[in-house]
C-alpha cells in the first residue's frame, strides 16, 4: 500500500522490521547453539501463534480504522463458556456453536456501538471487554479457571495439541487464518471496502460503500477469529484462565500488529505485516528466553523495540501538521 510519492531510498517499516528480524536470526544462530534447530524454530512459531491469530483479528479492525480492545476478553470468556458447557455434559459440538455464537454476539455489539452509536472504537471495545467479561463471569461461569474436562478425550482436544506431519496444529491454524484473512482482504469486495473505509471513511461513504454494516462485519469477523485463537489456546493448555482479561496480552497484540507496519490510522498494511511482526516478536522472545532474560526485562526490551520501530517510522514518514487528522490519537 505504499503511496507512489514516497522517495525511492526510504524504507517502509515492514522492510525495517524484516531486516531486524533477519539480523536477530543470524545473530542468535551464530551465538546460541540450540537456536537454529527445526524443533526450536517450530516451537518459536508455536509460541507466538496465538498472538499471531489475535494479531490478524486486530489488524482487521485497525485496517478499517478501528481497534478492538475486547478480543482478549472475548476469546477468554467465550471459550471458557464452551469448556464449562462441555464439563456440564453438553456435547462439545453444540457447546462450540454456542460459544461461537457468544463471541459473535459480542462482536456484533462492538460493531453496533462503533458504527451506529458512534462511540469511539477505543472506548467502545474497551468497555465491551469489561462488559463481556463481567456478563459471562457473573452469569455463565462458576470459576475463574475452567479446566478442559468434559471434552478432554475428543477431537476438540486435538485442535490445539495435535500435529500434522510434524507441524503443530496451532502453527498450521495460524497459517490458515492468515491466508484466509489475506485473501479476503485482498480479493473480495468487502475486503477492498475495508481498506477504502480505513483510508478515508467519509470518501468511502460518499462513493456509496455501506460503511456501517461494514464496520459491524469487521468486528464480528475479528470476534470469530478471536474465538479460534481461544479454542487453540484452551486446548493446548487444557484450561482457560479468565483473569487473562486483566493482563497485558491485548497490548502485546497491538504491538505485534503495529510493529509489522499496519498503520493505526487505518487503510495501511496487510496480513503480511502481522506475520512479520509476529515473527520478530517470536524470534526475540525465543532468543531472550534461551539467553535466560527475565520475564519483566523481556517486556521492557519488546517495548523498546516497538518504540524504536514507531520512532523510525515517524522519522521516515513524518506526520504533517497540515494533514494530520483531528482526534487522531
Amino acid at each position, binding site marked *: 500500500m505504499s503511496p507512489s510519492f514516497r522517495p525511492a531510498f526510504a524504507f517502509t517499516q515492514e522492510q525495517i522490521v524484516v531486516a531486524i528480524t533477519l539480523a536477530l536470526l543470524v545473530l542468535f544462530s551464530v551465538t546460541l547453539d540450540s537456536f537454529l534447530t527445526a524443533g526450536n524454530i517450530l516451537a518459536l512459531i508455536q509460541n507466538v501463534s496465538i498472538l499471531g491469530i489475535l494479531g490478524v483479528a486486530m489488524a482487521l479492525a485497525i485496517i478499517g480504522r478501528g481497534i478492538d480492545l475486547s478480543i482478549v476478553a472475548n476469546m477468554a470468556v467465550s471459550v471458557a463458556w464452551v469448556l464449562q458447557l462441555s464439563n456440564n455434559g453438553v456435547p462439545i459440538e453444540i457447546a462450540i456453536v454456542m460459544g461461537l455464537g457468544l463471541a459473535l454476539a459480542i462482536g456484533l455489539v462492538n460493531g453496533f456501538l462503533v458504527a451506529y452509536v458512534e462511540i469511539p472504537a477505543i472506548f467502545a471495545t474497551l468497555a465491551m471487554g469489561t462488559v463481556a467479561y463481567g456478563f459471562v463471569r457473573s452469569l455463565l461461569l462458576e*470459576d475463574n479457571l475452567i479446566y478442559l474436562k468434559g471434552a478432554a478425550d475428543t477431537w476438540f482436544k486435538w485442535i490445539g495439541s495435535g500435529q500434522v506431519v510434524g507441524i503443530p496444529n496451532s502453527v498450521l491454524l495460524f497459517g490458515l487464518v492468515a491466508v484466509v484473512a489475506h485473501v479476503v482482504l485482498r480479493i473480495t469486495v468487502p475486503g477492498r471496502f475495508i481498506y477504502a473505509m480505513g483510508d478515508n471513511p467519509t470518501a468511502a461513504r460518499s462513493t456509496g460503500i455501506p460503511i456501517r454494516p461494514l464496520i459491524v462485519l469487521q468486528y464480528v469477523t475479528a470476534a470469530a477469529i478471536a474465538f479460534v485463537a481461544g479454542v487453540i489456546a484452551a486446548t493446548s*493448555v487444557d484450561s482457560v484462565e479468565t*483473569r487473562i482479561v*486483566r*493482563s497485558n496480552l491485548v497490548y502485546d497484540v497491538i504491538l505485534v500488529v503495529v510493529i509489522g507496519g499496519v498503520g493505526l490510522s487505518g487503510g495501511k498494511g496487510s496480513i503480511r505485516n502481522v506475520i512479520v511482526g509476529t515473527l520478530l516478536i517470536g524470534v526475540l522472545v525465543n532468543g531472550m*528466553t534461551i*539467553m*535466560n532474560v527475565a*520475564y519483566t526485562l*523481556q517486556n521492557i526490551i519488546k517495548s523498546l523495540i516497538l518504540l524504536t520501530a514507531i520512532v523510525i517510522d515517524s522519522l521516515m514518514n513524518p506526520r504533517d501538521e497540515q494533514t494530520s487528522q483531528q482526534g487522531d490519537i
Partner: protein
Amino acid sequence: MLDHGRKAMNRCILAAALTAIVGLSGLAAIAHAEQPDDGLVNESAAAMKGKKVGFVPIAMGFDLTEAWAAGLKHDAEAFGYDLSIRDPNWSVDAGAQAFSQLISEQPDVIVVHPPEIQAYTRLIQQANAQGIPVVTMNLKADANGDVFIGANWYDIAVKQTEAIVKSCGQGSGKSGKIAVMQGVLTNPTSQYGIQAIEATLKQHPEVQIVSNQAADWDASKAHAIAVTVLKANPDLCGFIGMWDNMDVGIAAAIKEAGKTGEVALVSSGGGNQASACDNVANGNFSTYISYDAKGQARDLMMAVRSVLQSKPAEPGTKSIALYTPLKTITKESNYPGACWNLDDVKKYGP
C-alpha cells in the same frame, strides 16, 4: 332473625380463626421450647443474633474464599447474624477501600484476607482503635488483629523445599536446578517463604535456584514465565510453586514441554479436590502441601462465634493465633478424603 343468624355465623368463623391462630402460635412456641436450655445454648444464640460481620477477601470466586464464605454464610443463617461480603476482585486498592468503608459502618467483627503484609496494617489498627475486633485469614499482616487463622508460611516452604530436595537433591541423579514461582512479592507467602527456602537449601548446596520470579497469583502469567524458564533451562529439575491455583499454569507449561513427571512441581494450597488431589493424581503436582481451607473455614466460624459472644475488651491487644495443621499429599498419600470438594462445602457447609 336472618340478620342475627348471619351475625352469629360470622362470630363462629371469627372464633374458629382465632382458635386456629392461637393454637398455631402455641405449637410454634412448643417447637421453640423443644430444646431445653442447657445454660448456654440460648444465651450464646442471643449474643450472636443481629450482629454484623464484614468479610473482605482478596477476591471471591476461588476455592479458599468460597469455602470460608460458605462457613460464614452457614453460621449467619444458623445464628441470625448479618454477613456482608465485599469483593474487591484482586485489587488491593479496592480492598483497602472496602475495608475502610466497613470500618465506618461499625460492624461487630471484620474478617479480612490481606493481600499484602503492609496494605491493611494501618486499617487493622484503625479498626481495633475504633473497638472493632479483626480476624485475619490465612495471610498474616504486620498488624495482628485479634485472631489469626491460617498457614505458617515458613513451615510450608520448608516442607516444600524438603520435598523438592528429595527429588532433585543428592542421589536423585538430577541437575539440582530448581525454579521458584512466587505469587505477590509483598505477600507473607513470599516474605517468609523465600527465607525458608533459602535457609533449607543452605544445607543442600547441590540444589540451586536458577529462576525466581513472581506471577501475581495468575495462572496465565505463571504459564508464560514457566514456558520461558523451561526453555532457558532444559535440564531443570523442579519447580516450587506457592499456590495451586497459580501453579496449574506451571503444570501446563511442563506438560507442553512434554516433561510431566520429569520436572517435579511442588505446590501448596487449600486442598480443594479439583485443584489439589486431582492434580496430584494426574501427575501435574508431584507433592502438595495442603492447609485445608475447609478446616480453616471451620476455624473461622468458631473464631467469629467466640468474638461475637465475648467481645475483646480492647480489640487488638491480645491476639490469638490459630495456625492451620498442614497435610502433605503425594501420589502415595492421596487417599480418598484427603481433599474436600468445593461444591459440597457450598451446599452442605464445612
